[in-house]
């Protein structure tokens, strides 16, 4: 630790090395090889999802009854499923569903959790107390059981699954952003802004928010990984994405029935989930290393 500080200050004296800002951030992030690999994988999955219709060799929904349960061949590199659909194409389109689910459910959790948590930490008092007890209560439910129950009540479907997952993730973001505000609000720059006569809302959104975002960003990347798994789980149980829309979870749901005859059907969607989630976790760990001052 000490040696690293010394080298940094030496570098600073010889030439103005970036110690803050995007370049410094990227430089530090790139030092972690695994995090860099994770970022590449995430980018590849994202772009294949974005250009699914260009990249995928077949129509993911079109059935082909002459090619049912085909083992991997040159024409179908990952084989075909019970309706003769190309598994590779379904996997590429499935990436769309999974990433969309991950990003939107975390977006929902952020959109509710961040303002609520920040306000709670800023105004404190009774409102804060109530919000904290509410998050305590919500966090008492096993994450998957609550998501399942909400999804069951809202009904099956991708958008409802995303809402259910978003609600379940919200208390985590409330907690985190509240804790951030609690530690930031006592700092000198907040006092300075207040001394200059800035109104509370301006202090909260213009001053405290930018300074509280790092851990939220880390949490968001890890939560996206968890949300992708959650959507796959709900779809696997028949409560998420509905057929014929391809999704990694629902592909596994169908594959279960053909495990002995067509094991490739179960293999690839699982690998897709695993690799994507692992990559997002690596990115999250890498971001944490760069953004958490305690780990520097």
């Amino acid at each position: 630790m000490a040696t690293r500080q010394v080298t940094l200050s030496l570098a600073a004296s010889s030439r103005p090395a970036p110690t803050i800002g995007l370049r410094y951030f990227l430089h530090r992030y790139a030092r972690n090889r695994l995090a860099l690999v994770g970022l590449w994988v995430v980018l590849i999955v994202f772009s294949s999802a974005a250009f699914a219709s260009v990249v995928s060799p077949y129509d993911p929904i079109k059935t082909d009854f002459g090619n049912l349960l085909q083992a991997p061949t040159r024409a179908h590199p990952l084989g075909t499923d019970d309706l003769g659909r190309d598994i590779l194409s379904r996997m590429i389109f499935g990436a769309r569903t999974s990433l969309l689910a991950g990003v939107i459910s975390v977006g929902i959790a952020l959109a509710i959790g961040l303002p609520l948590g920040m306000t709670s930490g800023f105004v404190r008092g009774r409102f804060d107390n109530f919000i904290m007890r509410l998050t305590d209560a919500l966090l008492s439910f096993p994450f998957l059981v609550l998501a399942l129950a909400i999804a069951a009540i809202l009904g099956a479907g991708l958008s409802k699954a995303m809402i259910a997952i978003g609600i379940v993730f919200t208390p985590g973001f409330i907690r985190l952003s509240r804790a951030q505000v609690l530690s930031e609000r006592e700092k000198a720059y907040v006092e300075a802004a207040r001394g200059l006569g800035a109104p509370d809302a301006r202090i909260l959104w213009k001053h405290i928010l930018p300074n509280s975002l790092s851990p939220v960003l880390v949490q968001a990347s890890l939560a996206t990984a968890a949300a992708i798994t959650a959507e796959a789980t709900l779809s696997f149980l028949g409560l998420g994405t509905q057929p014929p829309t391809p999704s990694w979870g629902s592909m596994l749901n169908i594959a279960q029935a053909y495990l002995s005859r067509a094991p490739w059907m179960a293999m690839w969607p699982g690998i897709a989930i695993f690799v994507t989630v692992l990559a997002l976790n690596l990115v999250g760990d890498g971001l944490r290393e760069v953004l958490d001052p305690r780990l520097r």
Partner: protein
Amino acid sequence: MTRYIARRLMLTIPVLLLVSIIVFALINLIPGDPAQIFAGNEAGRDVVEALRKQMGLDKPMVVRYLIWLGRLLHGDLGKSVRDGRPVLATLLLKLPVTIELAIISLTVAWTIAVPAGVLAAWKRRSAVDYAATTVALAGISIPNFWLGIMLIYLFAVNLRWLPPSGYVEPWKEPLRSLTLMILPATVLGTALAALVMRLLRSSMLEVLGTEFIRTAQAKGLSDKVVIMKHALKNAMIPVATVMGLQLGGLLGGAVITEQIFAVPGIGRLAIESILTRDYPMVQGVVLCSAIAIVFVNFSVDILYSILDPRIGVETA
């Protein structure tokens, strides 16, 4: 100490009350007419009306909540829509199965995670450390239902070493019961082991950097004694507190694991009742798991304050 326990208990009451409100709201916020949903689409109007009266749906929401809460406090969780049996009786019947699975999984997880975590911290930045942390990250990232399917394919379909799914009580056929539990416990234990290992590693690293460890080393104690007697004991404290959080993950994981391996516990009951829209049962399962977590968290907090006396003093 007593003051701390009393204070902590007081904090539990509003949480439990909010839990009950959330569970009540879950069912009462179903879009549409609950009486019609409970009775099914084919039911006649008089049946639906009778059910509406019986469920008290003609009364205001707050009154209904209080009636429901009153019954709840007397242990009445209502009756299953599917088989008409009391919800509580079914829950109590299924609970031991899940507890059995949970205990075996926890044993599997801790047996792997503790030595791996200690070794990774002790040999920091060595090949062992990198291997252990990589495997742990993979363990956290792997979707447990897929792991379950793959293990069934490998060990039951392909190698035929283990039965694919099913359950027998351990006191009836102990050996068969154990072979049936190996795969589900492995699936459920994997994520837990990964989590415990990561936590233990970082908490060990923190402890290993403290003065009292240096003192112990300076006294000439062997590495083994320093690690096992001095460091591990202290590193386990934060890990022990995560037990409460683990229970939530364990119960959630049990849902999917029990479903895949046809283990008739609370988790499978949750899915069955959700898929068949047996709402009183859904309510019961959700409530039961939340209460379990609240009380485990409470006990862990108390245990923590006993293990580390500074906690009680700081917060009381």
